[in-house]
């Protein structure tokens, strides 16, 4: 499902509106390109593609896709400094070890 949802939501941030139920947020599944053993988890549902995590990852672990969203480009480089955690304005990424 992850891929699909990710694609569907590109450019769309939906807000509540009449006669539509509030968008239910699913936080049960994390979509990271790669498996759950990835050193960094990215929750694309919430990511707004600002590029901050990529810009400030001190090791160059993260890369940026064409649409602006981050991905784990070099998993081995992650030092779990949690910079991306702290600087992501949308709580959509973590490099924390303990998570």
């Amino acid at each position, binding site marked *: 499902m992850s891929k699909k949802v990710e694609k*569907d939501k590109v450019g*769309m941030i939906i807000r509540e*509106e009449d006669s*539509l139920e509030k968008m239910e947020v699913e936080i049960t599944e994390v979509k990271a390109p790669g498996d759950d053993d990835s050193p960094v988890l990215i929750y694309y549902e919430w990511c707004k593609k600002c590029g901050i995590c990529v810009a400030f990852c001190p090791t160059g672990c993260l890369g940026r896709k064409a649409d602006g969203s981050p991905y784990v480009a070099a998993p081995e480089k992650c030092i779990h400094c949690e910079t991306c955690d702290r600087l992501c304005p949308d709580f959509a990424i973590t490099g924390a070890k303990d998570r």
Partner: protein
Amino acid sequence: MAKNYEIRLSGSGGQGLILAGIILARAAVHDKRRTTQTQSYGPESRGGYSRADVIISDSEIYFPEATSFDCLLSLTQEACDKYIFDIKEQGVLIVDTTFVKNLSLVSDNTYEVPFTDIAQEKLGSPITTNIISLSFLVKITGVVKPESLKKAIEESVKPAFVSLNLKAMELGFELAQQYKK
């Protein structure tokens, strides 16, 4: 009383629909017709829901919001679902299939075009989706003259972006040619 032509452009904030509405209304002015353009959006002008209504008429327009649409353009599923049942019997529905996946009502006058994908593909960014789809709408419905649309676009976007948007317009016209039933 002469008939109003009522158009609703709907989607979400950031898709440039209000600008599209303004351009359409300007074009109508160039056609020397009467027009009103209204809009509605969430408190967060960015990201929330958004719609622009344009009414074009040859007589005085009283109520300025579109209530039943001669034409509905929907760039998101949500907007489409919300407004689809208020299209007039012979009304035109235009949806962006990049986002609108389900249509609860399809007629002869329904046009399904992946505007955003096309914009991304042909013009390198989804930013002109509004102009492409608006131009498509204009060509399909004939509600304003293409020259007036062009003039309105030229007046309404920043000089640096005029040529891009005119390209988008042409693209929209071409698509209309293509999809025209």
